[in-house]
């Protein structure tokens, strides 16, 4: 059976019941566009959550002293050689940052809080949230800067302000308390109160001097986009013998689990939308077949093989699905462009922060998701046509022609 003939018949049959097929086409377009837009929002949520987790002083990979995660203190530290950095291609590495991160107590004239005291080199922190935060006052100037920057929420809780002094108490390598006064250079806005309450930053060499120890407690490494984390992680495992090398999934297991769930959510959403659509498609195709019983009977009578009858029904479904998918993807892409600047979720800031996201949800449309939607929708269209096609092929020419 020539494909051209089947195509001709299928295409013309679609125009035979225009109103019905236009309604079906609209349903396919809406479903595909809806799935595409929803996928872009899910992906936006997914990647935003991942980026937030990575930017949360985590990086894609972190090097820690053994036992630091269970008991983070200055005793779980290590010295860093000057030539410590493995030889990685520049295009694979976005940056790295060595830090001291230890528990401490911070006191203002009015309040006392427990915090994480972090010594950083500001030049290296473009890989974390603190490098990109907005400030009131000043940023830290260098690794030797003896001032501190604190979160604006912590400043509110401590009832203090830029320019005032704070006292920080922490434990040194020798087990004795170290106490020092620091002036507030600035307060940072981290788009979420959790980080702002938790982290206080100073220059790393200033903190090393306070602790009287030339060590670090962690090295964060951030790769360029889409790192093949496992293979690159191996480079660090081999380089930093005796230290723990952990990736972001191990450091942020909740965010990692949500990342995997978002992958599944893309499929679940697709199945719900397409599942509903398929019932409509099957119903329409069965109606179309039943309306043409006599025609199918005649086709079989004059010598059309059963396989060709199946092919014709499947082709009609595939054609309408293909057109619907193309228009639906274009519509979805249009919506994505419209939403590209992001959706402001600041009204629900607390809930958004709990979900590990930032307050601006920027949709992300992945080509592989569009290919997946197109491919699976076509497969669904073909599967939906199999039952009507089976009904068509079961039509006995003799009975059909008697009608």
């Amino acid at each position, binding site marked *: 059976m020539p494909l051209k*003939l089947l195509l*001709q*018949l299928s295409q013309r049959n679609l125009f035979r019941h225009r109103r019905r097929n236009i309604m079906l086409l609209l349903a396919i377009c809406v479903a595909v566009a809806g799935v595409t837009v929803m996928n872009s929002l899910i992906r936006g949520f997914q990647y935003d959550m991942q980026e937030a987790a990575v930017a949360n002083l985590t990086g894609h990979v972190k090097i820690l002293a053994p036992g630091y995660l269970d008991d983070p203190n200055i005793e779980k530290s290590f010295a860093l050689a000057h030539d410590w950095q493995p030889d990685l291609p520049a295009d694979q590495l976005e940056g790295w940052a060595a830090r001291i991160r230890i528990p401490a107590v911070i006191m203002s004239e009015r309040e006392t809080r427990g915090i994480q005291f972090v010594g950083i080199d500001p030049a290296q922190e473009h890989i974390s949230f603190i490098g990109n935060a907005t400030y009131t006052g000043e940023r830290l100037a260098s690794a030797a800067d003896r001032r501190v920057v604190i979160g604006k929420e912590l400043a509110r809780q401590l009832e203090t302000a830029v320019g005032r002094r704070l006292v920080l108490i922490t434990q040194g390598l020798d087990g004795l308390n170290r106490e020092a006064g620091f002036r507030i250079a600035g307060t940072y806005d981290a788009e979420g109160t959790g980080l702002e309450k938790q982290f206080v930053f100073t220059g790393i060499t200033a903190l090393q001097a306070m602790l009287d120890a030339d060590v670090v407690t962690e090295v964060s490494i951030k790769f360029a986009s889409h790192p093949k984390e496992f293979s690159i992680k191996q480079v660090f495992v081999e380089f930093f013998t005796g230290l723990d090398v952990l990736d972001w999934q191990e450091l942020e297991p909740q965010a990692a689990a949500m990342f995997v769930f978002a992958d599944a959510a893309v499929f679940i959403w697709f199945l719900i939308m397409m599942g509903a659509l398929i019932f409509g498609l099957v119903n329409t195709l069965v109606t179309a077949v039943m309306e043409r019983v006599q025609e199918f009977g*005649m086709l079989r*009578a004059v*010598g059309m093989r059963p396989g060709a009858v199946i092919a014709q029904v499947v082709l009609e479904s595939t054609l309408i699905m293909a057109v619907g998918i193309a228009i639906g993807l274009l519509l979805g892409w249009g919506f994505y462009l419209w939403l590209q600047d992001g959706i402001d979720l600041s009204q629900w800031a607390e809930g958004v922060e709990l979900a590990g996201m930032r307050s601006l949800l920027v949709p992300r449309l992945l080509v592989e998701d569009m290919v997946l939607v197109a491919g699976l929708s076509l497969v669904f269209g073909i599967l939906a046509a199999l039952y009507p096609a089976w009904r068509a092929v079961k039509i006995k020419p003799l009975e059909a*022609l008697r009608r």
Partner: protein
Amino acid sequence: MSDVVVRCSGVTRTYQDNAVPVVALQGVDFVVKRGEFVSLAGPSGSGKTTLLNLIGGLDRPDSGTVEVDGVTLNDLSESELSDLRLHQMGFVFQSYNLIPVLSAQENVEFIMQLQGVAADERRERASSLLKDLGLASMAGRRPGELSGGQQQRAAVARAIVTNPVLLLADEPSANLDSGTTQELLELLRTLNERQGVTIITATHDPMVMGYSKRQVNLRDGEIVEDNSSRAA
């Protein structure tokens, strides 16, 4: 090449009508030779359409054998029957059964397309035949834009364009007025006499019977009269 186109031997066919067996044919022996124009006649329920369908491979006998051009249909699968109908037979149906989304020309080309005939040859043969049948100016029209007689002529064109061994027509005049019926019968007679097409019709229209060379009367599933003498 055998002189016999159709040979039915001891053909019996029983239908179930609401679990009640209805004998449509019982032990029918029937032979049609090449070039004959046969009409199967009889009242409703006599078995004429059943016999036509068995000859066309659209139905299978409960017992007995049906042979068409030397091929026993009983032994063929559905696909093989489809191929036989496609290459050896032409069908003219009571309600024309043209494909509504194709033009008259495309309907006539349709069977040739199924057969895999090249496009140029298809077009030429279909155009030529439609011209012979007086439908040249209607070639581009779809069935809905043609009168009953024009549709039936297009259906005949579709049935004979592949030069079938056998043309089967089931009540071909049922939906036609007498003038159009006469035109159709003249056409069938011309095909039979000039091109030697073997034609079997099932009919209870006396006009159709009058044009055929041989009239076979059935009653209650049996052949009660075979007026072969008209062939002479």
